[in-house]
């Protein structure tokens, strides 16, 4: 049986069902949108002050 997680969104007022997908699970560990990630890392490396904890 597929695992389903209900989420009541306070922001949108909707109830959302997240269903765990075995097909998606196969993508775990893969770097998705690598260019976007590289851009984010580039920005973070240039950061002059650390992020608040």
């Amino acid at each position, binding site marked *: 049986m597929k695992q389903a997680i209900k989420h009541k969104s306070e922001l949108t007022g909707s109830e*959302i069902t997240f269903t765990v997908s075995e097909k998606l*699970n196969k993508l775990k560990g893969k770097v*998705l949108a690598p260019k*976007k990630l590289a851009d984010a890392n580039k920005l973070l490396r240039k950061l002059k*002050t650390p992020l608040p904890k």
Partner: protein
Amino acid sequence: MKYEVYTEIEVTEDFGIFDFISTGKNGEVQKRVAFTKTEQDKVYNLALGDVDEDNEINDYAVTDNGDRNKVIATVAAIVEAYTKRFPDRWIIFRGSTVERTRLYRIAVSLHLDELSDQYEIKAYVDDEVVSFVKDMKINAFLIKRKKS
């Protein structure tokens, strides 16, 4: 922010990748949201795009499916669920184009009061992180769930 959202979303068991179907004037389009660990501790990059034929995120795709607000609201709801599970993580996000970053800036500005109830909302500007104020020109957003 009482927008319609897509309510059926597939997810990985680690809550890192989310897929949903956009339905609009151009038919059905599979959308994907992914949170990926960056080089900085506890900072995760948010990527959003269409799923292409290689099962990759194409964040430059122009879907034009007539459901932009519904997609953005769905992503907001996903971020809400994600940060509830991982409240100590920062999320960094920006558009893949200047126009999309502007769109995100407008969306956040429109709902800044209610978003600020839930999140610390920071802006990356000129290699500094500052508190975001409405309509501020930014390179990227950094958000984190506020401690309750």
